[in-house]
Structures are given as C-alpha cells and as structure tokens.
C-alpha cells in the first residue's frame, strides 16, 4: 500500500513538473504573443464600444436622451470605434469576409 502511495505521489510530481515546465522547454514566439495580446485588448475595446453604442440607442429610443445629445455621443463613440478598428487593421492582415463572395 505504501509503495502504491509512493508511486502515485511520484507520478503526480512528474506530471506537475512536466506540465508546468513545458513552456520553458519550448521556444515560444514571444513577439507574436505580445502582438496577439494587443489585438485581443483592441478587440475587447471594440466590443465594448459596440455595446455602448447600442445602449445609447436604447436610451434614446426610451426617451432618456434627446436627439442632439444622442447624435453627439453616438458620433464620439463611433469615432472611438473607428480608431480602434484602424489600429486593428494595422496590426493584422485584412480578414476575408465569407459573405463578400456571395
């Protein structure tokens, strides 16, 4: 029983060391990694702007915002979204839209 326990513990130790240490043995592409990180951050920011634009529209439609304020705020948010999209386009190659060929 004790031998079995020792084997289990050694196996756990080996698996843990292999799993945790694996990235150290690989030649991970660090530059590519940080680029991916920046793209992920920008995508999250873009999605947040989209959400805000949609919420603003609901505020307008439910009478909380008048036309003038809504247009101004909507314009600001869209400008921010465009900036984010522009930066995204600079960082990655253009993606072919599947619907474009139809």
């Amino acid at each position, binding site marked *: 029983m004790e031998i079995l326990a020792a084997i*289990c513990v050694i196996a756990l130790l080996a698996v843990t060391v292999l799993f945790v240490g694996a990235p150290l043995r690989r030649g*991970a592409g*660090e530059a590519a990694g940080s680029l991916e990180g920046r793209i*992920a*951050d920008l995508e*999250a920011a873009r999605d947040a702007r989209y959400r805000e634009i949609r919420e603003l529209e*609901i505020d307008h439609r439910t*009478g909380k915002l008048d036309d003038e*304020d809504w247009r101004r705020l909507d314009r600001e948010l869209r400008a921010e979204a465009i900036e984010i999209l522009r930066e995204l386009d600079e960082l990655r190659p253009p993606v072919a*839209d599947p619907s474009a060929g139809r």
Partner: protein
Amino acid sequence: MAATVGQACLILGVACSAYGVGASLLGARRGNERLVVSGRRALYALFALTLVAFVILEVAFLTSDFRFTVVATHSSTTTPWFYRLAAMWSSQEGSLLLWLLLMSAGASLCVATLRGRLRDVAPYATAVLLGLAIFFGVLMLLSAPPFKTVPVGPAEGFGLNPLLRHPSMMIHPLMLYAGYTLFLVPFAFAVGALIVRRVDAEWIRSTRVFALVAWLALGAGIMLGARWSYVELGWGGYWAWDPVENASLLPWLTGTAFLHSVMIQERRGMMKVWNASLILATGVLAILGTFLVRSGILDSIHSFVQEGNTIAWAFVALIAVMIASSVYLVVTRRNNALRSDARLDSIFSREAAFLLNNILFVAVAFVVLWGTFFPLISEAVTGNKAAVGPPWFDRYTVPLVLLLVLLSGIGPVIAWRKTTVSRLWRSLRGPVTFAALCGVLLAFLTTAASSPASMALFVFGAFAIGVSVQELWRGMRARQAMTSERALPALTGLISRNRRRYGGFIVHLGIAVLFIGIAASSAFQDVRDVRMGPGESAVVDGYRFDYVRPTAQIEEAGGKLERIDLGSVVRVTRDGREVAILEPSRGYYPNMAPMTGAVSRFFEGESTSEIALKAGFFRDIWIAESPDISSLTPVIEKGDAVFERADRAGLGGEARSVFLAGALTGLTARYRDAPPPAQFRLIVSPMVFWVWVGSLIVFAGGLIAAWPSLGAVRDLVRARYAARVAQDLKRA
C-alpha cells in the same frame, strides 16, 4: 494511501504556487513570455492538485472512513449520505480545502479565458492569486491538516452538527466561499493593473463577469443562510446582524457599489481611484469574511469552529499585508495613472446617481463593519466585550437603505452626462404616480402607516418596481417599433441582446420586492412565547393555536438510532375556521462521548428545533417548540443505573441493544401519555414569502446580467464587415 496522496497534493500545490509566484513575477519583469506561461500553468496545476485532494477527502466522508480524523469528528454512519458530502465544509480543515479549490478554480478560469488580453497585468494578478493560495495551503498543512489519520479509526464518528443538517447548508457555504474567492479575482487584477499603472477599463471588462458571479454567489449564499436561520435555528427570524452574517454582507455591499461604479469608468473614464479602492476593499473584506467564519474570534450562531483562535493571527497578518499593499498602490498611483479622463457634467446624470449610490453603499458597509467589530473595539478600549444589537444596526442602516431603494428607481431613468429636470420628470411621473397610489391605499386599507420607516420603504419599493417595469415596457415597445415583433419575443429579444442593462433592472425589481418583504415582516411581525400543555391554547394576531396532542418518536438511519423527536400537534384556526395543522418538534441527537450514561446520552447531545411552518403569499405562521424533558429525568437516571449494572454484569451485543431500544421506546411512550407543558414560540409574520421571491428575482436578474452575450457581439462584428463590404462595393 489516499491520505498520503492527499497530503502530497497539498504540499505539491504549495510548492507549485511558490514557483508560480516567482515565475510570474520574473517573467513579467524580464518580459519573458515562457516564464509567464509557466507561472500560469502553475495556477492550473494548483487547481488540479487541489481537486484531487478534495475528491480524496470527499470519498473518505462518503465511505465513513473514520481513520481520517476530520471524518470521525464531523460525520457518522447515521449521517445521511448527502449530508456526509457536505459535512466536509463544516470542519475547519475541509472548509479551508474548499476555499482553496474554489479560488484556484475561479482564478484558473479567469486566466484561461483572457486569451491574450491584459498580457502585462495578468502575470502580477496570477502571482497575487498564487500568493493567497500559498497562505491557505500553508495554513492547512500547519494548523488544520485535512489528511491527518490514525492507524485504526473509531467504530463510529461524532456526526455532523445537527444544526447543519438542512438542505440550505449543503449549498450555503459553497456559495459564500464561491463569492469570497471569486471577488479575489478582480482584486488580484486590480493589484496587477495598479502595479503596471495600466488602469484603463480593460481590467474591469476582463474581470467584470467574475465580480458579478462573485456578487451573485455571495448574495445567494447570504439568502440561503437567512432561509436556514428562519427554518432551523428556532428563533423565528432570518437576519440577526450576527457577525458571520455581517461578514458576508460586507464584501457584498462594497461589491455592489463596485459593480455600479465600474460602469462610470467604462463609459467616461472617471472614478478610477474609487473603483480600484472599492475592489481592493472588497478583496480585503472577502478575506475578513473567511477569517470571521473560520477563526471563531467573534461569537456567532453561524460559526461552528472549535479550534478557537489558533489561525486568527495568521489571518490578521494577511489582512494587514493586504491593506498596507492596497493603500500603498492607490496612494502612489493616484496622481498619474488613476487620474480621471472626464469630469462630472451635471448632478442630474447617471454618473451622479451612481456616485451617490456608492457613497450610501459604503456608508452601510461602514456601519456594519463598526457594529460587527464593536465587541473587539470595546474590549480593547474598556476591557469589556460589549456587543451592539439589531436596534443599533437598524437605527443607522434603515435610513441609508431607504435612500438606496429610492435611488435604485431614479438611477435607471437618468441619462449619462446630463439630463433636464423636465425630461427626468417625464420618465419618473408614471412610477411616482404608482408609488403614491400604493402609499395612499396602504395608509387607508392597512396599518402600514403605524411604522413610518416601513411605510416609506413600501412607497420607495413600489416606485423602484414601477421604474423597472416601465423600463422593460419602454424597451420592449422600442424594440417592437424596430422589429415589428410581438410583445413576448420583443421582450425576450430585448433582454437577451442587452443582458447587462435589463438584468440589472430585474435585479432592482427583485431588491425592491425583497425590501418590501423585509419591511413588512420585521415591522408587523407578531411574536408570543407561551407555555402550553395539551388542551390549552394561545392567540397571536387573531390566530388561535390549540395544543392538540404530544408526539414522540425515534428516528433511525442505517439501522441505528439517529435522534429522538419530541413535539406536538398544533391546530391553527382563525374565526373558527381551520388554517393549518402544524407539528413542531425538537430532535435530540445522542452524545457520542464515552462517559455519558446509556440512556441519558440520547438527551445530552445536541438538540435542534424542527420548526413547523405554514407559509403563504401574505402571511407565515411559524411555531417552534422546546419540550420540557425534566419530568423524564428520574426515569432516564434510573435507566442509566440499570444499564450500568447490566454492563458490569457483562450484558452486551444484541441483547443490550434490544433492551436499550425497549427503554427508549418506553420513554417516548411515557412522554406521549403524560406530556408536561412545553415552551412554544408562536409567530405570525406578514410577507416573508416575498423576501424569498425577491431573492429569486435578484438571482435571476444577476444570472441574466452575468450570462455572456457572445451572439450579440458576433452579430455586430458581422454587421460591421457587411458595412465595410458595402462601402468597398460603392467605391468600386
């Protein structure tokens, strides 16, 4: 063998965490991605190792392996299997293991779902989370080892504390701990963001769902605890401002404030110092909550710790480090990284409403914190441990809660940046009229006006409900105008595409219902403590309670006696019409200490009140009974003496069990035949039902808000590409 593997998992987990802290910090400082990834993997490994340890201990509980000390002291063969499963977290050792499992699970999930985002912040957050894991791992290994075993275990365990044998108790600790541990995820990311001075809204967006789920879990845990208190503890209430209850409420309050104020930072880039401070405070309060539950430093009806203050100083040290680090980070970053991008445009804006809401939440939290720690403060200053009771808490919290309920109605209808008074009134006039109408009806048709605070809460609650319903209605109409959908599809479409906003409105609706229930049930509850024998009666709030007859029975589990129930049948009538037949009782669990008498041990262990409840939409009828067993004492003592002589004469095995069963059956029959008067607590309480309904609505709203709306985002991305294609085609 299992214990050895379990212990090895804990030691490996601590070692893994220590390595992970080093690798993450070194990787972040040197910009070495491989070290960062390795540190992240250490977090995943910690989760896997803790899960293995957890499963090993659960199996020991399920199989009643009493070689494990923690199993022998917290479970027994007479404990039903589903309570055996939950018995683990009634112990110090098991609950610390559960804490570590939930924390590592939440942290791993968050780090895994970042998918490359917050690349600079994440390593520091990972290091903070792993640092906390080291604390809990070392605490377990040194102070509360879950895998401590003896070569030969006892034949029977001490059993689970009878008070914890309630379905709520299976989920309540899980939910509380999930709340505490998940709040540490945004806490850790806030620390990381402050360290790298990247305090834009991205760390908030990436961890918001964890803060929301933490808030939801903690809220659910609090309400399950309240339900348990109501139906199990035998005093008739669901909230007693008990230190452990308060400990769970504190991070919930600051977490609620945080969930509101982060919207301002996401929208306007404002309140960065405040948001960082709030989530850092919430993290510290989550640890404080764990500390209060597990240290036994304050007397509580919810604490089941026997170990005393052995781990108290370790927690105090951790909390001191967390507070000092948090203050240092906020103070050193306040002038540059934490500066606001914008200013408050108007007091008639949602930002201003959120700011006020935050101040109120923090004020309530401060009152609760002060009242909770007052016994320790007074002991330090005067040498006497003086506690403050519910009236003290009510005096300060009720006005603040009133304003919060009112604000929960005003906030959703104010626009961001600024609104005009006339526009605000246009949005408010419907709910205000509805609330005023409710107030007038309540004043004339009920006795609600006799309690001004409750009356105000009813009116403000009606106002908040009116606003929430109006917002759902307006949103649905707006969607119908855009899509020509029918009402129900339009409403579900509206909610599913704007989960955060409408989930929030549903939460407000639930909170209003919940507080209406609390106001009614606490202000208009009628309680009477009476002593009644068979044939006697008492009247409470127009309801007549007749003691019809006594009940007495022996409950068995797995062929062994689990408890003896002594109680009564009570008939409840109103104006001669029968409302309910209720059967309250008290369960007596045997004392497992070897020195107690053969018969008396069945009455000298723990006893729990099995309350009888007739719950209704508008009124609960609640009875708890404490039978007087002093009349049985001479018989019990005589039985002890008889068995003592029989034991000396060598009576044992099957024959002893048969005689003992006969003696106990005779005792219960004697109680049934000649019952002494029993002490009853009779309660008629209005609207308690709505406390639970309100909680469920809050839970549903929280779930809606927390549910990720990936579909909507995909639609928008697709729409954007479509627009780009259209533009390109136009140019061509």
